[in-house]
């Protein structure tokens, strides 16, 4: 189904509604994960006197690979990391909601350098370990556009996620290929040009022809909803720009986004 057809069938704002729904569905289970992690933490606190007494009676006792102090500290670490993750989910859901509200907000001058840096920061934990990231931009060039910052961040985040998935897929198929993600930003007289290049699996011509079709995905079941690139494209179009993809199966993909350069209002 093409973008135009999707809009015709579901009306304007279909993607925004889906995104809002996703944000809501994320928060619901997150609520009880969060409260339960807190409950477990407090219950574990209640057990402390019991554990202290046991430790005194059986110094050096082993529980699997751990002694009791080791086990206690691991238990706490894991609970803290669950709690931290729930805060991250809240932040993600908030960002999604802000994105959908975005179409109503006024546009401002936005530095694409900042947008890319923020998106990279948000994806640090996903990219770490599998990808070497190189970010190049002219020092002094603000690469400024007029638009909605969170929407632009969403568009860049989609590209980063896709690149990462393609790299991981190639690494899984070929063994340890060194993942590379090259991001460059430059300005011309009228445009700001963002180029995101990865050495992941790449795509065939047939796949490439369909990447902007909503719900089309090559990712494994459950991993992709086929709305990433259509959403990215609709955000770029909203800002008066264009997205172009070049790809070769087995070599990688280059995504180029061109946006009109914006001056301060």
């Amino acid at each position: 189904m093409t973008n135009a057809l999707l809009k015709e069938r579901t009306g304007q704002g279909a993607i925004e509604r889906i995104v809002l729904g996703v944000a809501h569905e994320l928060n619901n289970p997150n609520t009880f994960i969060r409260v339960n992690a807190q409950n477990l933490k407090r219950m574990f606190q209640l057990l402390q006197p019991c554990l202290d007494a046991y430790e005194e009676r059986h110094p050096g006792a082993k529980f699997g690979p751990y002694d009791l102090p080791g086990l206690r500290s691991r238990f706490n670490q894991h609970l803290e990391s669950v709690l931290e993750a729930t805060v991250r989910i809240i932040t993600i859901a908030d960002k999604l909601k802000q994105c959908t509200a975005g179409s109503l907000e006024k546009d401002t001058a936005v530095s694409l350098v900042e947008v890319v840096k923020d998106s990279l920061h948000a994806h640090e934990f996903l990219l770490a370990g599998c990808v070497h990231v190189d970010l190049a931009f002219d020092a002094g060039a603000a690469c400024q556009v007029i638009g909605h910052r969170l929407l632009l961040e969403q568009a860049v985040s989609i590209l980063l996620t896709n690149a990462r998935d393609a790299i991981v897929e190639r690494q899984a198929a070929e063994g340890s290929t060194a993942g590379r993600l090259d991001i460059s930003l430059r300005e011309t007289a009228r445009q700001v040009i963002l180029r995101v290049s990865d050495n992941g699996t790449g795509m065939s011509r047939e796949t490439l022809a369909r990447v902007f079709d909503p719900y089309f995905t090559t990712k494994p079941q459950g991993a992709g909803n086929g709305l990433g690139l259509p959403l990215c494209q609709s955000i770029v179009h909203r800002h008066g720009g264009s997205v172009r993809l070049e790809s070769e199966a087995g070599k990688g993909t280059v995504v180029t986004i061109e946006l009109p350069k914006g001056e301060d209002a």
Partner: protein
Amino acid sequence: MNKSEVRILVVDDEQDILLSLKTHLELDGFGVEVANTAAEALEKVRSGRVHIVLTDINMPQMDGIELLEEIKKIRGDITVIMITAYSSLLKVGNSRFHGAADYVLKPFREMSELDEVIEMAYRQIQRWDKVLSETIELKKKSR
């Protein structure tokens, strides 16, 4: 009145949330009951002593606001606290005009917010309870 004597009824259509909140409030020292639907909650309000109702706003069949109205018809002194997601803020605002005492936003970004709201409700119950026991004392003396 100490905490263990205070009965809190938690109402939510999601079982997992009910259980997590029940444990949380029990660890705080309160007596806790749960209800999966507004109808079940009304049954419990009618048949037993409930001091605080903590209810979700968005529920199928009867929602939290309707439940609030029904509870207030049965007993005006029950403290009703609304739980809601950010997307239902308008409904929370409306609930105030139907007698809701307070609200808490899901997904509890700050866990302390829930604790503070419950603690506040508890302190109010204690204050009203004090008035009641002092009145009873006075009556006894005057006899």
